[in-house]
């Protein structure tokens, strides 16, 4: 396959002397509009390194540090809008735009660069990691033994996660539960005359309370109702497929099969 024959010195991309001065986030929108990553088609033959430096805006070129071995490079940037392929047929387009960020060093986030008032600003670490993952989801990258990715989300302390994600939602859910609780208590009281304290002693009311809490917890969006139903079907499907061998041979009157 032509794809593999030319050796790509992609490691040269990560020229250690060249660290972009601006953070990744600034460029993100610009990058998406300016560049399109095209992959080499399987039946094109690799042309020699046509070092056609497309006349990009400066930022883009800066992101791709100059190759150390120009003779065999194939890093060419093609843009959908750009037609500066001065008369040359662009056949091989190996565009490898890897994820880069000033704070992403050696496959993990350099926490020292996230300091704010002398303490690590975990929120920005979380946001940076989210941006990295988003980037990679849209532009999957090759793994490489020279630059392994080692980041582990568990270095971010548990309270940072809770503060950022759990607490706002907890507030929302507690608010809903409180509203439902108040109005249900009022409603039941007006219907039956049973006060709040007496309601708590009644079994039916306790069941209603349980249902209300479970409902608030599990059904947070409209789609959740269907999702839960599908989830239940999913969990039991595999078992049903295994039991089918036994069910077939049981008489219709024999209910569910054994096990």
């Amino acid at each position, binding site marked *: *396959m032509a*794809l*593999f*024959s030319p*050796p*790509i010195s*992609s*490691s040269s991309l990560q020229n250690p002397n060249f660290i972009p001065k601006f953070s990744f986030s600034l460029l993100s929108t610009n990058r998406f509009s300016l560049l399109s990553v095209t*992959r080499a088609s399987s039946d094109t033959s690799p042309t020699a390194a046509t070092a056609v430096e497309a006349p990009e805006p400066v930022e883009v070129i800066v992101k791709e540090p100059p190759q150390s071995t120009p003779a065999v490079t194939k890093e060419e940037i093609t843009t959908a809008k750009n037609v500066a392929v001065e008369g040359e047929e662009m056949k091989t387009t190996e565009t490898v735009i890897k994820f880069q960020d000033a704070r992403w060093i050696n496959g993990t986030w350099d926490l020292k660069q996230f300091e704010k008032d002398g303490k690590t600003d975990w929120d920005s670490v*979380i*946001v940076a*990691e*989210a*941006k*990295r*993952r*988003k980037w*990679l*989801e849209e532009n*999957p*990258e*090759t*793994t*490489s*033994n*020279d630059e*392994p*990715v*080692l*980041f*582990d*989300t*568990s270095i*971010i302390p*548990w309270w940072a*996660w809770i503060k*950022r*994600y759990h607490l706002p939602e907890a507030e929302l859910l507690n608010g809903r539960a409180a509203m439902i609780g108040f109005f249900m208590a009022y409603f039941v009281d007006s219907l039956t005359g049973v006060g709040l304290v007496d309601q708590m002693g009644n079994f039916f009311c306790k069941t209603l309370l349980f249902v209300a809490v479970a409902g608030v917890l599990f059904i947070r969006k409209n789609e959740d109702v269907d999702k839960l139903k599908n989830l239940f079907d*999913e*969990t039991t499907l*595999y*078992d049903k*497929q*295994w039991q*089918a*061998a*036994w069910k*077939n*041979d049981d*008489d219709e*009157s*024999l209910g569910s099969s*054994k*096990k």
Partner: protein
Amino acid sequence: MATTVTLKSFTGLRQSSTEQTNFVSHVPSSLSLPQRRSSLRVTASRATPKLSNRKLRVAVIGGGPAGGAAAETLAQGGIETILIERKMDNCKPCGGAIPLCMVGEFNLPLDIIDRRVTKMKMISPSNIAVDIGRTLKEHEYIGMVRREVLDAYLRERAEKSGATVINGLFLKMDHPENWDSPYTLHYTEYDGKTGATGTKKTMEVDAVIGADGANSRVAKSIDAGDYDYAIAFQERIRIPDEKMTYYEDLAEMYVGDDVSPDFYGWVFPKCDHVAVGTGTVTHKGDIKKFQLATRNRAKDKILGGKIIRVEAHPIPEHPRPRRLSKRVALVGDAAGYVTKCSGEGIYFAAKSGRMCAEAIVEGSQNGKKMIDEGDLRKYLEKWDKTYLPTYRVLDVLQKVFYRSNPAREAFVEMCADEYVQKMTFDSYLYKRVAPGSPLEDIKLAVNTIGSLVRANALRREIEKLSV
């Protein structure tokens, strides 16, 4: 005695029970209701007659691991065995990984194993790479085999034990009219003299083991039903030697939406090349796209490689609705015994072939008596009892960890944990659900939930970013 016999007729057989002259009457269903099959201890010896002047004849259709193992066990048990295989030198496209226990249980010679994989790398969608295998002991490994070598070896052993191996293609079978009439198999025999077309032949046998793989014809002829299946697409790539040393004893697993929406992409080392592939159940049409993505993720490591072969094969996702019918039983891929999550099939194929053959040997008392469906049913019972927990656990793992990118990230994060590695390898290599310590299990549960929560939180952040 009569009750047991009549009850047996009810549980073991369907319409055929009316044709049997041996049994006195139908027991009304209400009587058999409280009886659960597990509590019945039915022995064939009382009901089935002795075969007067011949041994029991059993045909095994398909000469892969399942067929080879079944034929060997049958022949060793004193049963007249015929193994029908359509292509003796078939290089079945396959991942080719066998667990350590298979080497011991099936007495495989060590030179069958091309490579011993002792390290694995799991790579998440954001390329976080985790090495697993630190907990493996010196003698533990995952064996990589060439299917043509393994299959040929097992068939040879079956032949040495007394089975007749025929190169032929099974076409169809005629079902017997009575409960003890033989099955008539129609097949085309290739004997080299008649050229490529072969000669049509028939054969009469008492029982059939269908070991003919995912597109089993035996399954079709007994109306076994269909299963969902995954398509596994694989390219064999010969890479330069210096890159091959990295894969000397290491296999890689890539997870991500780009690589597969419900499975994983892999780079497995073979004898002198690597196999790069991926699979999917739900998006079979995009398999080429997934394959490109897998190659892209491994690009640096397989650069300069040449593709020497492209292959694809179906992988069953769950067993067929009906795995046996009267005196025909399915084993291996034909039955659908491939685990979820890892897609492992070779060991289970061979083991099910052996288990089915053992049930036949026992039920026929080493070939002296005719068997009936109840004896084959014992094989199903034993199989389900032994391996259903394993299948269930792997199904849960697949459902939880392969459903989305955050789940896969959490999965890879969990794999970094030593306890997880130990449990995973123990259960994979020895096929036993080893009881770990409860404290560690609780810690593991907490960590799993933590990883899942973090990964999903990051996904919410990602969604916020795109808005």
